[in-house]
């Protein structure tokens, strides 16, 4: 397929996944404060910190609170990674490759964008759970449309790589929220509040039920293991990396290349490392450090991917 089209499909898919995860960040935090535990640490600041864009935020909004963080992550048109700008970019990308998507897929992106765009202009909108419920519906529709209306051809695989790399990154960041949350109050580990917070985290990746089936009780090593290494849950980092690796393999196979691409090799290497790392090692070495490194590796895979498929063939 055309390199430009592959790149647009890849980014379109990443941007939608990014928007979805922002909604998940916000939704879980809103749920958490509804329970109003007395000794809850301020939940809004960590949310800003995990985006890695604190500086932008502080300059524009000052101290984080519910209103400005929701506005920042969901509707800020100046912030290049807000839900609204991500969806707008995804739609622009989709428009550029419309003939490669199913009509349903394009219409779903269009509708999703229009929904958020209209919401951003609606002052009277209740920007709490109901809005985020609807966002979740939209994202589920998007996944369904992608799975059931598109041929699993090269375009689909590029979309899948984008989606999986983004999801792996964001799952790790959701876990990281907890790290920031924990910092000021290490003594709370193991209390009821803590249980509630870890559960909320699991809810954020739709993994609460799956986790409970496996472990029944919340324990830090089990939750961290679930986020990072679970072999079957669709949002665990390991599962996402494995799926991205599968798609890259299929892309190489479709082009009848003799050797795997660099990006494909790097994804496989990461997958192996995840398969053979123990939770205990992660906790001992510092979870935040582990997650940071993981994000660097994911970024490196993204760059290699661009060199392999999007840029390499353009004559100098």
């Amino acid at each position: 397929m055309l390199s430009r089209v592959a790149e647009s499909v890849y980014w379109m898919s990443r941007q939608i996944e990014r928007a979805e995860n922002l909604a998940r960040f916000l939704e879980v935090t809103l749920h958490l404060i509804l329970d109003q535990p007395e000794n809850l640490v301020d939940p809004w600041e960590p949310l800003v910190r995990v985006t890695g864009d604190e500086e932008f935020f502080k300059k524009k909004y000052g101290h984080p609170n519910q209103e400005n963080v929701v506005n920042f992550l969901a509707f800020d048109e100046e912030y290049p990674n807000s839900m609204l700008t991500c969806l707008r970019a995804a739609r622009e990308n989709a428009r550029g490759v419309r003939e490669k998507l199913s009509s349903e897929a394009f219409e779903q992106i269009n509708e999703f964008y229009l929904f958020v765009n209209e919401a951003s202009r609606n002052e009277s909108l209740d920007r709490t759970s109901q809005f985020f419920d609807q966002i979740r519906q939209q994202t589920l529709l998007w996944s369904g449309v992608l799975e059931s209306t598109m041929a699993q051809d090269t375009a689909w695989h590029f979309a899948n790589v984008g989606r999986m790399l983004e999801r792996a990154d964001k799952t790790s960041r959701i876990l990281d929220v907890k790290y920031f949350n924990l910092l000021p109050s290490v003594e709370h580990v193991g209390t009821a509040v803590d249980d509630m917070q870890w559960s909320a985290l699991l809810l954020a990746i739709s993994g609460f039920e799956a986790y409970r089936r496996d472990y029944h009780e919340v324990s830090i090593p089990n939750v961290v293991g679930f986020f990072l290494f679970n072999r079957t849950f669709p949002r665990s980092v390991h599962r996402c990396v494995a799926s991205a690796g599968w798609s890259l393999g299929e892309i190489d196979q479709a082009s009848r290349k003799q050797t795997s691409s660099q990006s494909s090799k790097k994804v496989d290497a990461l997958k192996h490392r995840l398969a053979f790392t123990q939770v205990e090692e992660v906790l001992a070495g510092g979870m935040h450090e582990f997650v940071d490194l993981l994000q660097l590796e994911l970024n490196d895979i993204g760059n290699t991917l661009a060199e392999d498929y999007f840029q390499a063939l353009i004559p100098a």
Partner: protein
Amino acid sequence: MQSQSQSQSTDSSVSSSEYPKLEGYLAEGFYDEVVCADSVARPDAVALVDLINRLPVGELNRRQRAIERSLYQMGITFTVYSDEQGTEKIMPFDIIPRIISASVWSDVELGLKQRIRALNRFLDDVYNERQIIKEGLIPARIVDSCPQYLPQCKGLKPPAGVWCHITGTDLVRDNEGAVFVLEDNLRCPSGVSYVLQNRAVMKKNFPRAFADSSVRPVNDYPARLYQMLRRMAPDLPNPTVVVLTPGVYNSAYYEHSFLAHQMGVELVEGRDLVVENDHVYMLTTDGRQQVDVIYRRVDDTFLDPEVFNKDSVLGVPGLMRAYRAGNVALANAPGTGVADDKVVYAFVPEMIRFYLGEEPILNNVPTYLCEREEDRSYVLAHLDELVVKAAGESGGYGILIGPHATDEQRAEFAEKIRENPRNYVAQPTLQLSRVPTMTGETLEGRHVDLRPYILCESADDVWVLPGGLTRVALKKGSLVVNSSQGGGSKDTWVVASPGQTVARP
């Protein structure tokens, strides 16, 4: 007013008492395509008028809104101006279809085929032997002074003598219902995607009236287009066909994408293509792949910065080399714009006589060429009656509609005509035919034109899409139908003769 209506109803001789009357609607002395002067349905519109009369109050309006909503959701929009808001509008769509009888259509079809054959002969001639100029039928200075005449195309001989494969001729009907050619549109005419989408929403919303009206189908257009394109590389068993678009910010981008999608071919931009050893390749994730046929929707002068506009980033350097070497086919060939010039237009009837030895089937609108002195004096003296057009403009720009203009506007045009007479033509103001159109809760007549689409594979193989884009001037009394200036569109129902294929709802 009264006598005109009378003569019209006898003229069309269909005022039969058994035909339903469109209630509460007045033709107001104009030629109406759905009803006769007394508001009684024309024979082909009986099922439609019946349906409208039976719908409960407000129902038409409700369906109109529902259709608009679905067009918006489908993303069938054009960009108004590009900013971060992505300001997009749907092309306004009107729910009442325009109906064309089988007998009118059969003349239109024959006339269009004849015209495109003559125009292709003219293009081949004017870039090669120039017989028509040598015979003194068209002055050389008119051709050579035309901005769309491209000297870079001299000596080109496209296969089968076809320069213009895809045409979207603009037709109008006057107060007597007579059909005239307004413009030939030989350069990347757009709008066919709206024809197909309009049809799709109408079938969904009016299945019964549609089924009862024996409408001819239009949805094989993409298949026909693909067939024609692939035959432009006759030596290859499986040629690679692509659609070349200027990109997502082009106002017709939706159509480019739609056609590529429907044909199952790649939609490429200039930056996706490279030329090497006079062959065209596209850059893919698997490396380079040769391209054999390009349906290009990029304007002539942007096609190849080596030959035309040097600043163009939309085109492909070297494309013309590959084209001249016969390694890639282009639809349409570059240079067709010369036959689109509004001065050259006036000579099309002569071309038909000269090249084909036939009398024109479709009328030209009588045209005054301001570069002729007597024409110019007449035009300047009658600006309040005439429509004046700039020869090189399109899209409804550079037009003065004399009867609707102010004194200042007329004076401004008189000045322009004196300054550059070659660039102006004038035509009598036609009272364009009308079709009932939704205006809030009621139906009123609005002026329309018609753009049918023609595919030309060779002189013997010309196909006319039985239908076309009906554009409607939504503003009361307005004669400007362009979407950039408040125009909308309607579905066009061409009625089948006995034995012709009928579309199924």
